[in-house]
């Protein structure tokens, strides 16, 4: 379980960083989205990963961190998802505005001189 999650985070981060460094605005925004997925998974995993466990508690169990995953990182993830979603949407609008105003989808607003 740990291996799968960490591989997923690693691959998402790697692809995200690669795309972020590209020169087209669309690639940048996809890279940012991938990166934010990686970060969300990462936050989620800090609460502890367990397979086959009850959602909260088995019947008759005492509540302690050994029995259930820490819910606080899940709350953090929710907040992070909402904020990430909103800011990505805003960036999309800016991206479209930049495309319209500069006539190119290069991140600097002009093509590199060849």
């Amino acid at each position, binding site marked *: 379980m740990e291996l799968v999650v960490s591989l997923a985070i690693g691959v998402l981060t790697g692809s995200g960083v690669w795309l972020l460094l590209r020169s087209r*605005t669309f690639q940048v925004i996809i890279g940012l989205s991938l990166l934010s997925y990686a970060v969300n998974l990462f*936050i989620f995993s800090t609460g502890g990963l367990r397979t086959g466990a009850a959602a909260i508690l088995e019947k008759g169990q005492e509540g302690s961190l050994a029995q259930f995953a820490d819910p*606080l990182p899940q709350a*953090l993830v929710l907040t992070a998802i909402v904020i990430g979603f*909103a*800011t990505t949407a*805003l960036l999309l609008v800016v991206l479209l505005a930049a495309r319209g*105003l*500069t006539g190119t989808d290069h991140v600097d*607003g002009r093509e590199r001189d060849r």
Partner: protein
Amino acid sequence: MGWMDHLVAAPVLVPMMAGAAMILAGDRWRGAVVALGLLSTVLLVATAGWLLMLADAPQVQIYRLGDWPVTFGIVLVHDRVSALMLALVAVLGLSAFVFSLARWDRAGAHFHPLFQFQLMGLNGAFLTGDLFNLFVFFEVMLAASYGLALHGSGTARVRAGMHYIVVNLVASLLFLIGVSVVYGISGTLNLADLAARMRDVAAADRALLEAGLAVMGVAFLVKAAIWPLGFWLPATYAAATGPAAAILSILSKVGAYAVLRVWMLLFGGEGGDSAGFGGPVILAGGLLTIAFGSIAVLATQNLSRLAGASVLISSGTLLAAIGAGQVAVTGGALFYLASSVLALAALFLLIELVERGRDPGADVLAVTREIFGTGDEEDGADAPEAAGVAIPAIVAVLGLGFMACTLLLAGLPPLSGFLAKFAMLAPLLGPADASIAVSRWVLVTAFILSGLATLVAMVRVGIDAFWASPPATVPRVSLLELAPVGLLIGLSVALTVAAAPVMDYMQAAAASLHAPGAYLDGVLGGVRGARP
């Protein structure tokens, strides 16, 4: 709990409610929106002033949101440093708001709600005592600042704004990674609780915790525009409209504030084995930022970019002074922060007024004329020009304001910029007999040389803008626009006149930052002693 105790939450609540109401009112009832905005900003100034007076006491005030126990709920913490920052935000808010009324608030949709949310985010970031809540307020503040930076639209703004948004989104992701690592290791997000636990972190976990905090620190330093993470700043600030740039000038100080708060709390005296972690990096980064900012100031030919580069210098100076890690230097740095924020905001507003009367390419033309020369000079020499160039009254007033900003930013007497620089330099040099470490010499040199660079650059640009080539058309400036600039510069003068009590306040604030015991006791109260 009387209603006065709830006043600590007012700097967040007032602009939030005002902003929400403004969205409902929409663009149809501009009068109502403006009245609401004026009410909110004036209330903020009153509250901030009141909180500033309350804060000048040894104990720290906290406000528990929803009355949850401290380590479970979110707390707002109100101490001297927070109160200082709140007061700066309130003053800048009022000035920029009044300035915007003359014309800029009509340059695009939703200026006023965005402005209120900007104030809310700033105030929240300065008040909160919780790491994740700090992230949330950072995002509120940034989201509003994206809107404000783009306000008025246009190619330059959208191009610079896109870089600004992408850089800050990446910084936010780094912040999240840092926060989650910190939570994973320490099990708390409350700053005071975290500071109390720093000593007991297991040796095996310490490196990971430090790494997490360092990642978070990078996010703060991006906001503070440290070299090499600050290339987005001059372009964005130069492209933003006057009032937006004025409020943005305190945005870069949020990064410095976060570093100051978190770093002093976690890696100060209570840090155990981690004490002093990362100090050299902040010092070196600050010095490099000063160097880069000085070069940028000298290289620029454009008034707005000059102001943007001055923000870099001011950020670098603050960070380097924080990195020096001395109580007296930090006190001086806080004074510098107040003085430079006021001066930068005034400068951004002034520049907007000056640029109004000038041709877009005038700055560049002036420099080329200097280098290559044109035929004008010979013609001019023949004409009897005993009277010189007549300078319109309004340009003279603006020129005086620009002069005051130059004195403030370069750190020349008699204004508060000089006192701030002096307050940082004097403790660095120390008593005459003590030997002085090399790093301090470098710091002293950097402070003085950056002042010189600012002076040279601003005098050059100023002579050109106000004396050598009077504006083609006299800028039309309304009283609404002059008053905020006057207020900001007047406050700088007040800082100079009342330097003794202000300096005492700053030194007390710095002392409490360096000895966070009172902060911990204030926030954790009984919880701290009770923990096994």
